[in-house]
């Protein structure tokens, strides 16, 4: 038994960046217009690329599967719009890497009816059928990581899932997609929970929501169906509470072992928008064609939460909402972990939770890097109690092995809290990313 629990209802350390959510949190989700051309990369998720099922020049219906999963660790891609496959080629992605994909030209006068598939219902489907249906719907974690959801839900033989934890934290500044989904799609969320409970075998579902979305928590609480074992838990606002491990600690007061997964402590964490997507698609046998994206930031004119078809080019999105003349940085996701893009001709993909546009004056000035003055801000910020200051110094001399053995480098999940607080503008998390990828490469080489 713990005598003192100073961190009741939340995890240790963490930071409080400004939220910037007021501009969009009260704006209802709006359907976005269809762009004339869609870009559909085959690598929108973590895992094996999807395998194309269509040829150039072929006509496809909205909702039709155009690429199938290449294995268990992969998901299909569906056509977001009725149209014709113009070209199969390499398409640009957010990382700058060119991957196989298609350019899909929409039929301008099509009614855009969705082609329905075989519905599946939670009460009479088996666990395997649900997992398969989730995979066939092309569903990945919509929080941003885009990890195939069915892989996460498949509980290993020797383990057991006790609690299904729905992540409605949305701790990234600017983003309000999950907030709107919880307010507007609560029925879908609860429908999704039925599937998820069955798929994981969990007896109970807890929805974790940060206190800045109290209205969403109240709304969900009020609408819980009587037969569902769901509990809504409000946790204090703190970044990075949306990280799986942090949310588990906040809600359940247990720690996931270093290097382990939530299932090791009997928990499966699923993003709340993913649950809503499952609840909406599976009863109709549909595939994922669109998602809610927050478009915001100081450079955007018509900010809002939009339901945008997957594959819509960012350039088209920004033209539609209008941006200021001095845009200087566009990034996908939230400001803490989002990726800045160098090219507007990349598409909105399944993992795109937000598009934030900065003008010149919003980009933080980090040109001058001071030496580390060992102030300890990063140590007090790191949610998993690493010592970023020490790792930063080690990374300067490329002592990557020491970073792993002495400092638990591989536990770092790159939330960026250390870089955020560092008064000396040291790009700590960037160095850790580099260090991690070098260590991984070395390991792969050693095994090869």
């Amino acid at each position: 038994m713990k005598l003192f629990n100073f961190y009741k209802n939340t995890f240790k350390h963490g930071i409080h960046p400004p939220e910037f959510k007021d501009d969009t949190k009260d704006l209802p989700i709006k359907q976005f217009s269809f762009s004339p051309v869609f870009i559909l990369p085959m690598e929108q998720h973590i895992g094996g690329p999807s395998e194309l099922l269509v040829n150039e020049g072929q006509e496809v219906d909205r909702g039709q599967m155009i690429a199938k999963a290449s294995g268990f660790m992969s998901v299909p891609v569906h056509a977001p719009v009725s149209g014709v496959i113009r070209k199969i080629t390499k398409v640009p992605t957010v990382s700058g890497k060119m991957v196989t994909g298609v350019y899909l030209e929409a039929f301008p006068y099509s009614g855009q009816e969705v082609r329905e598939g075989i519905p599946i219902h939670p009460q009479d489907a088996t666990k395997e059928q649900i997992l398969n249906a989730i995979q066939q719907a092309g569903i990945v974690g919509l929080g941003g990581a885009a990890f195939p959801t069915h892989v996460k839900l498949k509980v290993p033989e020797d383990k057991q899932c006790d609690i299904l934890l729905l992540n409605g934290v949305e701790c990234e500044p600017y983003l309000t997609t999950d907030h709107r989904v919880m307010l507007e799609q609560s029925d879908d969320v609860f429908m999704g929970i039925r599937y998820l409970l069955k798929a994981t075998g969990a007896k109970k579902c807890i929805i974790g929501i940060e206190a800045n979305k109290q209205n969403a928590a109240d709304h969900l609480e009020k609408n819980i169906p009587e037969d569902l074992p769901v509990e809504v838990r409000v946790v204090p606002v703190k970044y990075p509470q949306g990280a799986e491990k942090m949310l588990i600690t906040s809600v359940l007061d247990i720690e996931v072992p270093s290097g382990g997964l939530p299932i090791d402590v009997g928990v499966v964490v699923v993003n709340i928008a993913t649950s809503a997507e499952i609840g909406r698609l599976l009863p109709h046998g549909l595939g994922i064609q669109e998602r809610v994206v927050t478009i915001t930031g100081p450079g955007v004119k018509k900010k809002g939460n939009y339901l945008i078809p997957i594959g819509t080019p960012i350039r088209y999105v920004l033209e539609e909402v209008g941006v200021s003349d001095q845009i200087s940085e566009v990034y996908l996701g939230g400001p803490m972990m989002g990726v800045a893009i160098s090219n507007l001709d990349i598409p909105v993909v399944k993992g795109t939770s937000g598009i934030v546009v900065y003008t010149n004056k919003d980009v933080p000035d980090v040109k001058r890097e001071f030496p580390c003055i060992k102030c300890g801000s990063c140590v007090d910020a790191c949610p998993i109690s690493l010592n970023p200051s020490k790792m930063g110094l080690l990374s300067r001399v490329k002592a990557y092995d020491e970073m792993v053995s002495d400092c638990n480098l591989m536990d770092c999940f790159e939330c960026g809290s250390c870089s955020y607080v560092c008064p000396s503008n040291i790009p700590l998390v960037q160095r850790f990313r580099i260090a991690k990828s070098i260590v991984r490469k070395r390991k792969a080489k050693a095994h090869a």
Partner: protein
Amino acid sequence: MRNQTLNISTSPHLKKGVTTDVIMKNVVYALIPATAFSIYVFGLSALFTIGMSVTSCVLTEHFLCKWSDKDSTINDYSAVITGVLLGLTLPPIFPLWMTFMGGVIAIGLGKYLFGGLGFNVFNPALVGRAVLQAAFPVAITTWYPALMQDRFTSVASSIYTLPFMQPLFDGASGATPLSAFKFDHISAETTDLMFGFVSGSTGETCAIAIVLGGLYLIYRGMMNWKIPASILTSAFLFSGMLYLYNPELYPTPWFILFSGGLLLGAFFMATDMVGSPITNLGVIIYGCFIGILVVIIRIWGGLPEGVMYAILLGNALAPQLDRVIQPRVYGTSKLSKS
């Protein structure tokens, strides 16, 4: 929409915005009350001492950077802090050429030799003072009475001593409360100590002005409050125990707390981020170590004042504390990690 060049940078795309130079600048602001008060108490002499020490530190840093083909780092304000702190630890009638030397040593030996800001193991100002104390033991313990009538019109002649000459002190010199206690066993009034109307180093005297500056930094989140708190608490408790044991022989804990440089050291020197440990537990051990050491040196040591050596020894201990004490990483068991 025009076809624009987009900037790319790695996340996070937000910064807290408190940079190192801002922190350093605020430390300088926090030292203003103590500096202003010492100038009020000791007059022009204090102004000259502090001014010379700051000038010397800044010039030394600037030229050392220039000579080693680096960009000058004086605009991060850390040299200014060293200068002000060094000035505040010296007697107001200290010869200016010695003060200048102290600044050169503080920055050159205490800071730059170790690699500049961020790498100095010891507090540079205290390194400067320690060398001065060893080199000029008489000059550095010749004090000047507070609140002299003519303090704003004339300065003590010893200030103008020619370089490499020993100063000649005119009659007016006063003992500090600590040396009075040490050698003559006279305890000063606590209220006098609080307001700083006593003899002593330039800035070691007014408790209220120092605490005010310290509280400002703590309020702005630019100082680890645990360091002064643990130093003062441990010094108070330890000397309090001694006092209860034998009130005849040992001074009151209040006297220990408010005399000499303990407050200035606890708030502005021990809290130097570079020289103090990085973890919370480490910081508390470091603070208690310094607090207890101060009392030991003051009571049983050969010197009337022990803050300087206590903090320098604490600085030496800090990296070792950081090596031994690391926070337990999330998801690892308490025992497996040393």
